[in-house]
Structures are given as C-alpha cells and as structure tokens.
C-alpha cells in the first residue's frame, strides 16, 4: 500500500487485559481507504479483542484509536456506528422474533413526518420496508419474498445476508466482518464474498476476520497476521502462499 495515503482507521499500542490474561499487548492496526484487509491469527491471538477495541464493543486499557487521523474514544458500538463504522458480528446481532425490516433499522428507526412522528413517535413502516427491500435487492438477496417475515424463519445464509446488508446500508466509512462465512455452505459463502467485493467497489474499506484461508487469499488486498496479542506482520497475498501465512500465524516461521 502506498505510504502517501493516510490510513482511514488506525490503532496504536492497544492493550486489553482480562484479569491476568493480556488479550492485546500493544497491538497496532491500520486500514487504508478502499481496501479489504483480512485479519488472521490463531485462536486466542487477540483478533476479536482488537476488532472490538476499534469498533467500540470494548474499551482498550491503553492505546489510541484514530479515524481519519483524528483520535476517537468509542465507549459503545453505538458511538462507532455514529462515526460510520459498522460491524457484522459472528453471532450476527439480529433479533430472531422481529422482522427483517425491524432488524435492519434497529436503533435507527425512521419516524413518520409531521404530528404522528413528532408527538405520537410513530414509526414510518412503509418507508423502512421500502429501504430494506431496496438494500437487499441491491445486494442480490431478493430471494427473500417477504420483508416482514421474522428473521428466525430465514436460513443461515439469508440471515448472514440481512446482517451484511444492514452494515452495507449504513456503514459510511468502514465495515468490519467477523467470520462472515464460518457458518455458511459453499454457495452461500460465494454469495457473501461477492457481496464483500460489491461493497468494496463502492469505495468502502472492509476488515475481514476469517479462518478460511482460500477466502482470505481470494478477496484480501493485504493480510494482517495477529499473534500473541499483537500484529506480527502485514503481508501481500500475492507474495506469499497460504502455508506461509499459516506458518507465520502459528509461529512455525518468522516473517523476514
């Protein structure tokens, strides 16, 4: 990546301790505009802790997070969202008993105009449903017939699609995807990977956390390898093989 370009999201010297466990040990993180950055690392390497620290889900004990060069202090995922960072969590963070439209607009509902919205605080259901439908079809997910069906009636892939569509619809600066293909079949994974490429082509940078090496090497522009609570190295997938990456992340080989 060109050094003249300012990173959009950076973490410097992030530390997070849980009791006697140090999950993050002065970890650094850089995401550049328009790229797909994959984050890989063995279980317990601290990938999730780092992502949580830059997305507001946890507050780091030490260190600094900067968005577009300005320091930010997120105390909740809501703060990060307001700053334009959307995260799709591994558990998807959907409410199964609520409809697709309700889920997509959770926490940022649209109210009706005029008296009904202002004083009766009435939701503008038709408008929210329309936007939800548009967003889903934009991402080629219109196999879902009924926008009012509850999320629990959808398949795993469809749920993933709804969660990604929600992030893509509202994420203005950064989208973070935590293991988006872990629970999916071959074809559904393919759909999600296409979705990721679609989102990048709109110029929004993506952080992809994954254990699936073929997927990582296919879509990532750069690969951030995390080991023992810190960034070990960042590699270009064109210069290294998958077995090199695995060797780095498990400590079998030192990066040069």
């Amino acid at each position, binding site marked *: 990546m060109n050094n003249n370009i300012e990173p959009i999201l950076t973490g410097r010297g992030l530390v997070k301790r849980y009791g006697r466990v140090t999950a993050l040990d002065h970890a650094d993180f850089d995401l550049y505009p328009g790229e797909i950055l994959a984050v890989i690392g063995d279980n317990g390497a601290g990938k999730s802790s780092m992502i949580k620290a830059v997305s507001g*889900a946890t507050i780091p004990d030490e260190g600094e997070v900067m968005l577009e060069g300005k320091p930010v202090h997120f105390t909740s*995922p809501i703060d990060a969202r307001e700053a334009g960072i959307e995260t799709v969590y591994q558990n998807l963070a959907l409410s*199964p*008993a609520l409809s697709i439209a309700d889920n997509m607009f*959770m*926490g940022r509902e649209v109210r009706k105009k005029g008296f009904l919205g202002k004083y009766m605080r*009435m939701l503008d259901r038709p408008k929210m449903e329309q936007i939800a439908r548009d967003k889903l079809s934009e991402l080629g997910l219109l196999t879902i017939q009924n926008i009012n069906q509850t999320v629990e009636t959808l398949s795993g892939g469809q749920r993933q699609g709804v969660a990604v569509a929600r992030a893509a619809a509202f994420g203005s600066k950064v989208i973070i995807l935590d293991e988006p293909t872990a629970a999916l079949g071959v074809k559904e994974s393919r759909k999600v990977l296409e979705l990721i490429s679609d989102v990048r082509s709109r110029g929004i940078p993506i952080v992809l956390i994954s254990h699936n090496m073929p997927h990582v090497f296919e879509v990532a522009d750069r690969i951030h390898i995390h080991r023992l609570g810190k960034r070990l190295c960042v590699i270009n997938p064109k210069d290294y093989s998958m077995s090199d990456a695995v060797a780095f992340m498990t400590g079998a080989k030192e990066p040069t």
Partner: protein
Amino acid sequence: MSKSQQDFESVLSDSATDVASFSQKKTLLDKIQSLLHANPALVPLIVLMLSLLVFGLILGEKFFSPFSLTLILQQVAIVGFVGAAQTLIIITAGIDLSVGAIMVLSSVVMGQFTFRYGLPVEFAILCGLGVGAICGFINGFLVAVVKLPPFIVTLGMWQIVLASNFLYSANETIRSQDIAEKAAALHFFGEKVKIGGAVFTYGVIFMVVLVLVLNYILNHTAWGRHVYAIGDDSDAAELSGVQVKKTLISVYVIAGLICALAGWVLIGRIGSVSPTAGQFANIESITAVVIGGISLFGGRGSIMGMLFGALIVGVFSLGLRLIGTDPQWTYMLIGILIISAVAIDQWIRRVSA
C-alpha cells in the same frame, strides 16, 4: 460469478440452483401455526370467545346480560392494570414479583399522606405515583446496571416493599366513609358510568385505554421495538444499537408507575385503603400474561393477549360461580389453561416460514 472465484468452485455454475426445500405442501395445521405465530393474541381471543359462548349457552340470560359481562370487566380491572405492567417486564425476558406490593404501598401512601399529614389529596396521589416509580426504578437499576436476575431482585423487593407498607401504615385501614367525605378524588376510578344495564367504572375504561395505548407504543414506536429486541436477545440488541440499560430501566419505572395507578384504582374498587389488599396481584398478573400467550422467555407476545387472558380468568370465575360449583374448579381450570398456554407457545415457536 466473479473471475476471482476458486478453481474448485468453477463447477458451481452447473450445480443445482434450487435451494434446499421441504415438502411445499402446507397442511392446515402448518397454516394455523404460521397464523398464530404472526398473531400471538389470537389463541387467547379464540379461547375467550369460546368460553363466552359456552357459558352463554349454559347460563343464558343470567350470564349474557350487559350487567354480568361488565361485572367481569370490573373484576379484572386491577389485574388488567398490574398485568399491563407485568407484560412490559415479561417481554424484556424478566419477571416482576413486586407488582402487587408496589400497588398496595402506593395506595397506602395516597391514603396516609392525605389523612395523616393532611396534604391535598391531589398531591398525595402524585406522591403515591412517585413512590411506585421509585420502586420501579430500584428494580430497574438492580436488573439493568447491577445485572442481578429479575426474579431475585423483585422477590427481594416484594418483601421489602410489603414490609415497608405494613410498617408505614401501622396496619391501619382508612375507612371508605372517611375517604368519600374528605378525599373523594381517591375514589375517582370507582365512579360508574351506566349505559342501559351495563356498568362501567372509570377504572375499567382507563384500563382498556391503557392497554390500547401500550399496544400502540409496543408496536409502532422505536422504544416498543427495542423492548421486544431486548427480550429476544439483549446482547444482539446492544450490538445493533439499542441502549439496553436505559430502555430496561425505563421499562421498570413505567411498570412501577402503572402499579401505582393500579393502587389508585384499587382504592376505587374496594372503597377503603387497606394495607392487606391485593395480596394475589402478582400471581394473578403472571397468570393473565401467560394465558394471554406472552412468552416467559421474552420477546414474544402481545399486550392484547394479556387483556384477553385476564378476561378469560374473569369469565371462568363468574361463569362457574353462577353455575354454583365449588370455586376450586375455577382454580383447577385456570391451572390447566396456564399449562396449555405455555405448551401452545412452545409449539408456535417451532414455526417455519
């Protein structure tokens, strides 16, 4: 497909395009299941209609008169109020065992502030409502911020509030005549509106209005959707941008306030202010909520169901009393209804699209 796809996936373009599908033939039972899934208040409504029909056929005019039917409404007014508070809390996957105690303490405060301290009755009523809201806030704070289980918090508050009630009131009842003479406002919800043979108290009318308003709030405002989302999966709600703590505390405060209102209605209903009234309100409210098809696991159900649930209990009680059976039969039937309601809830949850 994009050019970048993996080699081993190149065969995908020839693969079957149909998604895993189950036998598309939907049986009548499946359709019913889907319908009930979409309209959780439908089961209690059907049960209510059937029980009205059955008692109407057996008892005829004696039961199917405007007077008897509105009598049922009067008898369930208190349960309706407390049940509304209970519904809000159960939708968040909580439970409130202190609703009855808060109701009684509030009514005692309204009475004692007027009679012991000679405060204006309107002010005393406001104080009573405030006490209810404060009790709710304590519950909410302990549940949302200290993160104690709602069952334990409200079990403790039940004892604390009830003990405060007895200590403060010195177990003293304020007589109905005194209230009528000096503080008629306390009887406000007991006032009656007669239309033909039908008798409505303000308490009944207000209870129905409250349930309708809460139904609107729960379904058509962001706050209402958040309450459901929290009950469904509070971690998911938090991550998707709901302010879980704030919303939970507000739910408990509103529930406390509604219980305090129920305390005011209670004075209208029994006439006097008694620290020993409404002992069963918590169990009765949970019964109404459960029979009303609201899931104790949270996130599902409609407050209209609670109203139907309360009315079902009212219809059974009055119907069986008019038939002249031992009142134990009523309790037995209610017990059966509770278990059936939860069994149906479990079945509805297994719905497919």
